[in-house]
């Protein structure tokens, strides 16, 4: 669950990380008055959770409050589109932040190292560009520091890493302090990523977080009720947001064959099969364990809300989920919705015979295996 830049900076500031002054605005007048507090020397940044917002025209520097206000007014309500997010997102608010003079840019992040089962701190003197790029061009410029989840880090380990990263003398102590704050923030707020790029060193020798990306572990929102609302609307896609509200695991994939099934692994595998059969999956949808007819109906409705969907594949391996319940849900959905696209249902496992029997006489095509079902839906949808 990604946080907005302003939320990320607020969170880090609570842990003692120095961030540039600034606030969010939802209209031109507020943006201008915030800009005036900093003598007009500000950066206006669209607060949208998408990659490539700078290239999409969502970030601009100013030395005049009125112009900053005008730009903010134009930006709010506008849809930004980037390579990473072709559908784009509408800007609802902007961050107006003090412009800081930057002498040098560094990189700092904390993330999970799954292989080591520890936290990983990455420090680099090469800030300002994507860390993947640094890793490719100049891998020795990245210093990695593992944090034991039980024992934590000793100060000397951090000092050692900061020196290995060749952070210059005057900035070293501030960098050590920033890393300590970041690790604390990561653990206490249940983050799954904190990235500061760039960490800016001003000509006066002050170190601050010029940008900040924080993403939190959705599973831990119960410990952080202040982010519950963010969790609900952090989905980039409106259908994904609706699914999140209904507690359905749904991911929009941009193709035209709707896919649903029970269990993440089986659904992922269904996507692979549809691709192998020459189809383009529209989505991933896991109906979850023990789904009843009502739940299945809700899921069918959700998949069909994607207007690109030309065919629907349902893949159920009954365990706790019963095949006959699923069949009932599909039939109810068909009665209540005006479905005029082909549907192939593969039902196996618990309740499969009853389920397939129920579907007989309906427009739904039954299939015995996942592979056959994928092939059939692709044939029917693209006929």
């Amino acid at each position, binding site marked *: 669950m990604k946080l907005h830049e302003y939320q990320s900076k607020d969170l880090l500031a609570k842990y003692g990380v120095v961030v540039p002054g600034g606030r969010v605005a939802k209209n031109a007048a507020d943006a201008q008055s915030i800009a005036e507090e900093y003598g007009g020397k500000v950066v206006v940044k669209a607060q949208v959770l998408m990659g490539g917002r700078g290239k999409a025209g969502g970030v601009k520097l100013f030395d005049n409050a009125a112009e900053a206000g005008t730009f903010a007014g134009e930006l709010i309500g506008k849809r930004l589109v980037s390579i990473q997010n072709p559908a784009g997102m509408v800007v609802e608010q902007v961050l107006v932040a003090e412009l800081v003079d930057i002498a040098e840019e560094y990189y700092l992040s904390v993330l*999970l190292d*799954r*292989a080591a*089962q*520890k*936290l990983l701190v990455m420090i680099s003197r090469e800030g300002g560009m994507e860390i*993947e790029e640094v890793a490719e061009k100049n891998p020795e410029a990245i210093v990695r520091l593992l944090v*034991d*989840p*039980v024992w934590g880090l000793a100060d000397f380990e951090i000092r050692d890493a900061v020196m290995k990263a060749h952070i210059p003398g005057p900035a070293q102590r501030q960098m050590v302090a920033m890393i300590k704050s970041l690790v604390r923030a990561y*653990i206490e707020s*249940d983050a*799954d990523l904190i990235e500061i790029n760039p960490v800016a060193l001003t000509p006066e020798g002050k170190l601050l977080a010029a940008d900040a990306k924080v993403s939190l*572990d959705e*599973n*831990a929102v*119960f*410990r952080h009720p202040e982010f519950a609302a963010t969790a609900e609307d952090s989905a980039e896609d409106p259908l994904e947001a609706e699914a999140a509200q209904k507690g359905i*695991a749904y*991911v929009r*994939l941009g193709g035209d064959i709707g896919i649903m*099934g*029970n*269990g*993440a*692994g*089986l*659904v*992922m*595998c269904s*996507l*692979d*099969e549809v*691709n*192998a059969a020459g189809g383009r*999956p529209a989505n*991933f949808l*896991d109906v979850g*364990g023990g789904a009843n007819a009502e739940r299945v109906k809700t899921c069918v409705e959700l998949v069909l809300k994607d207007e690109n969907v030309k065919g629907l594949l349902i893949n159920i*391996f*009954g*365990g*706790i989920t019963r095949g006959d319940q699923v069949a009932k849900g599909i039939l109810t959905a068909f009665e209540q919705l005006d479905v005029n696209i082909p549907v192939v249902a593969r039902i*196996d*496992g*618990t309740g499969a015979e009853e389920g397939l029997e129920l579907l007989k006489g309906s427009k739904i095509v039954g299939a015995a*295996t*996942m*592979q056959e079902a994928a092939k059939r839906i692709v044939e029917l949808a693209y006929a």
Partner: protein
Amino acid sequence: MAVLVNKDTRVLVAGMTGKEGTFHAQQMLEYGTKVVGGVTPGKGGTEHLGLPVFNTMQEAVDATQADAVLVFVPAPFAADSVLEAEAAGIPFITLITEGVPVQDMLKVATKMKARGTSRLLGGNCAGIITPGECKMGIMPGHIFKPGPIGMVSRSGTLTYEIAWELTRADLGQTTCVGIGGDPIPGTRFIEVMEVFEKDPATTAVVMVGEIGGTDEEAAAEYIKTMSKPVVAFISGRTAPPGKRMGHAGAIVSGGLGTAQSKVDALLAAGAKVADRTSDVPRLIMESLATATR
């Protein structure tokens, strides 16, 4: 024949009085699993499904001599329940619960590894089954049958899918182990592979992986040294990077965890990799034919 659990395994169910716990404890009893009691704080001294319920893991162990526990406790309390089971000396703990925070699992995994007294399977897993002997999990029992194939998987329903393919091809299973779909699993592929390699009854191993993390690649290093044939299947070959495919652990990010990297590592290690689930039985039969030649 079996690994990790067998007909003598004495199973406790933590969270047995809840809806899911009740349903699955009943299913396990019907399958023939030796379920010996439940643990629900505050309900100690009562009976549920004809079994005694205890307030604490320690009381339950003292009274029943349980040597395994299946945990259905809700996510916010799951990590604590696992540590309680470990402290009570239960050597084998399976965590079914989905949605346990990563920070909790990191601490649990680190502590348990350091002490080395108990093994944790999961969370977010379907459990473990030794067909005909012990079903300790939420899988449908009838799709499995006893036999010589070991199986280990990150995904519940894909385990069912492939086990059913195996069973229909008359390839029964020694034990099927679900390690779960979370980023920090208590037990990883490589550890289960080691167990199967040592098990005299297991003649071949099926490994079902998916995108995300590098545990399949780590297992591939071990597979190089194994005497038994391994057939692998990796799901999510066509999943786009940055999109989480249901499981918290199933995501390609920062260039890590692609299906291709896993397939390449497994092939290089001498494993056979099935393009589709339905190819698994044939590849197993081919591997066994070559191995015994």
